[in-house]
């Protein structure tokens, strides 16, 4: 350590340290700097007194203001609920069929439904509502139980094959192979016929044998042309959508061991407004049916959209 000395050029004493010839002048602090320093100390003491600060065994000292991040969240949530109260009241008072007549309310419902969907529905239906094998996509135009607002709301409320809800959507397909109603060869023929409805398999001899079997065993629910029936929740077998897969093996498997997917009855967990908003959201995903004020559009001309949004960028 070098000796303290007075720097020649400035006439100021050095602090006495030296690093490779670099020394430091011992200039005094400006007084305002010292004041700022004291003010920071005073602020820190005040902070420790009014805010949670000193960690104890289970929690920290609560502080005079009793502030907590949970409390702050609760306050903000309450404020947000208050802000939304009028919209929620309007939603509660509007029957779901009449929602499209009030475009702004419909927009609010779709936005609220999007949020509720992310909490309650994505676990099975996926974040984009695209579903997966056994869990239907909600984006398409294929509806087993109906795709208008009212039907969607009913499905969400009471669920599908949900034990404990008397109004749940109920359908039961026999396991034709497993229960011995059809022989494996007959199941195979039926599958060939079913696939031929959408042109996936050739309409050959197998399909012809399958057609007879279909008429006897399947048409009662799925209809004579295989287009299904929403009354009994029988899927359309003549379209391009396959909930449990559309390969020959998939269809054979479905006929042999029938599937019976379950969806909860959300009326037991969610309030009616949230269910309404969920229905509006699902309906808006592109496959919704029965729009209230649908404008007409001809081939090649423009459909008119009710432009109500004044959203800022």
């Amino acid at each position, binding site marked *: 350590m070098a000796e303290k000395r007075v720097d020649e050029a400035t006439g100021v004493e050095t602090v006495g340290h030296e690093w490779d010839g670099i020394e430091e002048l011992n200039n005094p602090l400006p007084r*305002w700097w010292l004041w700022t320093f004291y003010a920071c100390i005073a602020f820190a003491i005040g902070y420790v007194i009014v805010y949670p600060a000193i960690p104890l065994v289970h929690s920290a000292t609560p502080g005079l203001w009793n502030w907590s991040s949970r409390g702050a969240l609760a306050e903000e949530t309450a404020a947000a609920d208050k802000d939304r109260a009028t919209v929620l009241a309007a939603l509660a008072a509007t029957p779901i069929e009449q929602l499209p007549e009030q475009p702004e309310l*419909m927009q609010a419902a779709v936005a609220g439904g999007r949020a509720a969907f992310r909490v309650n529905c994505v676990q099975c239906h996926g974040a984009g509502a*695209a579903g997966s094998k056994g869990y239907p996509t909600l*984006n398409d135009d*294929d509806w087993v139980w109906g795709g208008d607002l009212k039907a969607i709301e009913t499905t969400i409320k009471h669920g599908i094959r949900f034990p404990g809800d008397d109004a749940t959507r109920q359908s039961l397909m026999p396991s034709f192979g497993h229960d011995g109603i059809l022989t494996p060869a007959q199941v195979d023929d039926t599958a060939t016929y079913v696939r031929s409805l959408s042109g996936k398999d050739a309409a050959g001899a197998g399909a012809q044998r399958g057609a007879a079997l279909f008429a006897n065993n399947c048409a009662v629910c799925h209809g004579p042309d295989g287009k299904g029936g929403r009354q009994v929740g029988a899927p359309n077998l003549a379209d391009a959508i396959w909930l449990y897969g559309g390969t020959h093996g998939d269809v054979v498997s479905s006929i042999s061991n029938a599937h019976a997917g379950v969806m909860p009855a959300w009326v037991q967990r969610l309030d009616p407004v949230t269910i309404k908003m969920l229905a509006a959201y699902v309906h808006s995903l*592109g496959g919704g049916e029965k729009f209230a004020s649908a404008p007409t559009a001809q081939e090649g001309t423009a*459909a008119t*959209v009710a432009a109500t949004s004044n*959203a800022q*960028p």
Partner: protein
Amino acid sequence: MRNPEPEPQGWYEKRRGVFPRQVDGKFRRIKWAIMLVTLGIYYVTPWLRWDRGPYAPDQAVLIDLAHRRFYIFSIEIWPQEFYFVAGLLIMAGIGLFLVTSAVGRAWCGYACPQTVWTDLFQHVDRFIDGDRNAQIRLQNAPWNAQKITKRALKWSIYLVISFWTGGAWIMYFADAPTLVRDFWSGDAAPVAYASVGVLTATTFALGGFMREQVCIYMCPWPRIQTAMLDEKSLIVTYKDWRGEPRGSVKAAEKNPGGFGDCIDCNQCVAVCPTGIDIREGPQIGCITCALCIDACDNVMSQIGRPRGLIDYATLDDSASEKAGNPPTSHLKLIWHPRTLVYFAIWAAIGLGLLFALGTRKHIDLAVQKDRNPPYMLLSDGAIRNAWTLKLKNMEGRPRPMTVTIEGLPGARMWTDTISSEQAATSVSATVATDTILPLRVYVAAPAGTAAQDFAFVLKANDAEGGGDRTVTHFDAPGAEE
């Protein structure tokens, strides 16, 4: 090496008071004019009106954060056009370089808010306490009734000016007349009160008390400017070759030729707002306000010697003068290559901004494709993709617009508010005044359509017309394999 006994040091260094004397002269009058213009612009601008029609506020300069618009007279800037503001800030930055290159630390000396407000507060000092000597006497006087009254009065005026300064600031962010009413009735936003509070406090402290310490200790700009000055920069120079050795007029009469022009009257020190002695040479505390030039010129004219003992000069010029050449004209000194280069860059950016502003489009289509799911199979085997389109209308009137699919054979589109049965090759909507209309659209192409690029074409269906075209991608099964 001298090594005197070091003086014992305290914990801190008290500010040495600066009590600048009132002075009149050319540069003082320039400072008055600049102070008037800058403060005038600051206080008056928010009250100027500008009629934009019923859709937008009628305040000429308004930063409307709530609605995300920035209005400057006839120009309206949207958030995504913030590069205009960035461009203005870059121009301001290069403008500082330009000014520094041409006339040295003129920004510090004349136009910096710290300088302008400090100057204003120093005039309050003179108004209440009197000029330099009276101020020093009062400073050293005990705290009697007179001093307390004067201090209370002076600080109250400081506070009023500070409050007015803070109050003017928030007027730029909301309709000024409304905000004034709301402010006093307690209905203004909390952030308005907080802003006024903070700005009042900082103006009061920085202008009233910190003053030259801000320039010397806190501000980075003097350091940067020091690096930017060169031998061609105008700086306030004490012409020591002419002034030294110093001697009174009487001494010079007794001993003609024995003394320089400086009579050591100390006027240059007395008028200095940062409390330095310019005769010690260029230093960081000198903000080049040139008041010492005025003071010295006044003295020189009184004793009948030529003006300019302290004057603006470059280092080059100083060397040339020292060698006996006549001083160069200041106007000539300003125009050197570096100044011209800075000016060219500054002007080019300005012209570029003006060009961009003049040619910017007031209609725009932005498309955002759904990524989850990328495509969706429909019952009839058709493939559907979904987009959120944003139709932008920057005009001051609602505009009917149509979006059409281009280059996707057989494709149909519909929105989330109409049924897929109403699908067509285009969708029309009216976009409200000065807004963006988000439009959720579904596009379905026949079974077997391959993944491919196509475009959405936006057209305005009114007399003015115009539109936009945005290429996007249609996803189909197998596209990823």
